[in-house]
């Protein structure tokens, strides 16, 4: 595998010139850019023109990641040309949370095939219900195929995101595969030589007792153990509740299904004093069990390193590794200036021949542990590593 990364600063300068001669059907061009960039013109469009046969995939962010740097307003790009692995990309429109599952099924159906090693998914961060999308894709793939990725971001604004990619769609416009908003794109990696690693970790501390979700609808939680959710939440936060809703980021909710299973994390995106309800960046199924969480800088940073460690079994020794870091926008808010430290914690673990790009997202997609069912997470560092065995 040949690998190069580069970054185009807001002033238009590239840190490293791109290598369009690598353009091929086995070339992946991965791009994460500011939501302010237009996917239909300028630098983003240029990528598609310079790599016409490659699989160009990308989305808008709430912060771009290039190795240990966090950037805003830039476009970070990784170009990887595979020696023997095969690629297949596709996309589907998603106009609402309701059709997320069927869009996922459409993507999954396109990608299913021999030697599929893993799937990378990027989707609209505003209009898509990530949980349903992942469910749809999983339904069409054999069990155990890992699906990783994330939901596109829009800085701190939550207004509009874009997604590009999907070679199978007809070239109708500057970004191949249809309009960039309300869209999900997926890329399948195939071949025996391909190594697809993934790790995902929150690093949040749980506290307080587990409580049953007694009333909820979609992303909105109304009652825990028959009591108004917001009142209960505030009671536990004490004086820390005075900063709501801004401080809500520091106190996500851990969820698991009643029968057991791994805990996943849901970030609070809003509260409603009148209804005493809370809105989350993800489903809160009624009947599941919830528990409060709190942030601790050191532990969050440790968590990122742990996510990197989970991928270690899939690194091809001595070969370059493409690490795709998708971290939660919530973590960036919590860590603030110290968010580069979580990237450093990851980078310290990865082998020297690695290059890391990624973005702060509105939701991360990953199996919680290797081989498990794929889930949409919040508040995690989700790391995907791609490498190729020597022929």
């Amino acid at each position: 595998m040949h690998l190069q990364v580069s970054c185009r600063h807001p002033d238009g300068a590239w840190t490293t010139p791109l290598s369009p001669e690598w353009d091929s059907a086995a070339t992946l061009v991965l791009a994460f850019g500011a939501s302010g960039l237009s996917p239909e013109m300028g630098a983003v469009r240029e990528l598609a023109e310079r790599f016409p046969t490659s699989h160009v995939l990308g989305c808008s962010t709430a912060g771009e990641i290039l190795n240990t740097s966090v950037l805003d307003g830039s476009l970070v790009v990784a170009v990887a040309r595979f020696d023997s692995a095969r690629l297949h990309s596709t996309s589907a429109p998603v106009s609402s949370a309701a059709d997320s599952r069927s869009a996922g099924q459409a993507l999954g159906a396109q990608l299913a095939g021999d030697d599929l090693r893993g799937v990378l998914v990027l989707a609209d961060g505003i209009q898509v219900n990530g949980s349903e999308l992942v469910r749809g894709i999983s339904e069409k793939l054999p069990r155990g195929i890992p699906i990783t990725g994330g939901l596109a971001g829009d800085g701190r604004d939550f207004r509009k995101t874009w997604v590009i990619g999907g070679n199978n769609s007809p070239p109708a416009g500057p970004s191949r595969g249809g309009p960039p908003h309300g869209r999900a794109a997926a890329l399948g990696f195939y071949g025996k030589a391909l190594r697809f690693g993934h790790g995902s970790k929150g690093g949040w501390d749980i506290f307080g007792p587990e409580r049953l979700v007694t009333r909820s609808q979609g992303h909105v939680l109304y009652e825990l153990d028959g009591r108004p959710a917001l009142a209960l939440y505030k009671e536990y936060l004490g004086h820390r509740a005075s900063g709501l809703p801004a401080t809500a980021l520091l106190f996500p909710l851990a969820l698991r299904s009643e029968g057991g299973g791994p805990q996943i994390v849901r970030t609070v995106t809003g509260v409603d004093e009148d209804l005493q309800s809370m809105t989350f960046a993800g489903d809160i199924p009624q009947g599941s069990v919830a528990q409060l969480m709190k942030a601790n800088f050191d532990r969050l940073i440790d968590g990122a390193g742990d996510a990197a460690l989970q991928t270690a079994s899939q690194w091809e020794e001595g070969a370059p590794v493409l690490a795709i870091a998708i971290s939660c926008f919530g973590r960036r808010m919590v860590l603030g200036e110290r968010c580069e430290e979580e990237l450093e914690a990851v980078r310290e673990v990865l082998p020297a021949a690695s290059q890391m790009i990624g973005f702060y997202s509105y939701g991360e997609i990953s199996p919680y542990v290797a081989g498990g069912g794929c889930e949409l997470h919040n508040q995690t560092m989700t790391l995907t590593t791609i490498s190729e065995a020597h022929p």
Partner: protein
Amino acid sequence: MRPHRLLDRQLRKLGLTNGALPTSLDSWNALLDRISTTYAEADEDRYLLERSLSISSREMRELSQTLQSNLEKRVAERTEELERARRRLKSQERALVDLARVASLPSDNLESELRHLTAGSAQTLVVERVSLWLFNAERTAIVCWDLYELTGGQHSAGATLETASFPTYFAGIPGSDVIAADDAQADPQTRELTDSYLKPLSITSKMDIPIRVRGETMGILCHEHTGLRRSWEADEESFALAVAGLAALAIVGYERWHALRELEKARAAAESATRAKSHFLASISHEIRTPLNAIIGMSELLQRTPLLDPQREYLGTIHTASEILLALVNETLDFSKIEAGKLDLESTPFDLQKCLEQALNLVAPKAKAKGLELRCTLGRDMPRRIVADPTRLRQILVNLLDNAVKFTARGHVAVTAEWQASAGVTGELHLSVSDTGIGIPANGLSSIFTAFLQVDTATTRQYGGTGLGLAIVERLCELMGGSVTVESEEGRGSTFRVRIRAATAGEVASPPAETDHSSRLPAVPPLRILLVEDNPVNQLVVVRMLESLGYASPLVAADGEEALEVLHGERCDLVLMDLHMPRMDGIEASLRIRDVFTEEERPAIIALTADAIEESRIACRDAGMAGFLTKPFRLEELQACLEQFEGAAVTKRP
């Protein structure tokens, strides 16, 4: 010491690896800043954890209190529920006990029994309609024997359902213990009844119990609820099952009552027939004995007068024939009494030696006439007095001795008596009667005790007899808890051995003696005797008998009243009292004598009657009579009887 992993990272971030000192104020401040932040975070963490802990504790406390109070409430509710169930079961139990009391007796009034059951079940289970139906004989229809309606408390009956009209319902009855339908109009078991039965009567729930007798379904007990549908409880089903069981019992009781009535009728008829036979035998024997008495008595007396030889011969024949006739009558009567189970044995103490002597005395004249020797041997340990029935024992001995004398032409007849003691006073009396007579052929031994059978018809012709004597002996021995056996050799003689269960009563008998009865003669008795007898012929017979025995002529009275008059004027030692007399009979007279005279003045009374039946004997004893002679009696019997009283009378005499 290596710094903490997290501090180590902070230091590396600031470029302070390997224990390097901060190179500038800025980096020093940055380090302090980071350390300070970590402390602040630790504080926050602790704040949240402590807060969550205290809230959780409070919630747990509250939860525990809620649980406790819920639990208490639930326990109270459950207790109340159980109490209600207990009361209900108790009332069901009481009702069942009441109903069972009525249903389990044999009764002729089945309708009334069934009414008890329907009303009892309706009231206990609070069911509007409880009805009891029984199949007709052809099982083509089921008929309502009783319907009780709770509202109004009315009973009615008579409705009929054709089984052919409701095939599913009736087909289900034999295989079910309970047909319980909470929604009777929809339930497949009872749905068929909806239009013609359930709807018109507003029945919503139904619980029917088949009534089975000896495995056969006789009918059904129906519980029919009106109004809102009702769910039948298990205890209600059990109760209804028990009531259906009681209904089956009532039906069985009814059948049993009928069977008992039939049995009672048959028994009454049999008893009346037996009574009639008994009465006939008693009266006929009385009627026969009275003239026989005259014949025997007169022929005996006549024999003592001077007669021509042919006259004496004819008279002998008359006398023998009449004695045979008497024996026949007596034996027939005895045997029929034994066969009818009417023979009651006495159990009194008596002198065995005397009993033997009396029996020997009766056969002594015949033996003497044939030139036979009579011997009697008593065993060494023989008690003087034993407890048994002396009359019947004597009868056994007389029968055996009579036979022995009858079938022996020369030689002797010997009696032995031995006592075989067992536990305490009880023991066995062993008697044997042996002779040197003709004996019994081997082929006749097995049937010798069979009634109406003699060894052969030639025997009958030669020796006479009824063929009942040995049968009676055997039956009496058995009644007395013993047996009789025989050993015999044809031409050499026979030995009959009798074993009878008895008890001792007092001292051992006097030393054994071999007595020669053949030469025994009566002493001259100085007794003063009153004869009470209404029949002039019998009067004459007895008077002559007494005279011939050497007694002074007795005083004579024709009835009880006359006897009392005589006794008031003259003191007597002994009264011979006929029982059946005009004006005052013998029993009444005896009672008067007992009442009027002191023990010193009172004469002994001997009953004379043609009534040979046991009842008369008992009546006599109860009236204070000391002896009993059955007419016709022979001289020897009268003599034996009088001798018993001689000694007593002499000592009493001043």
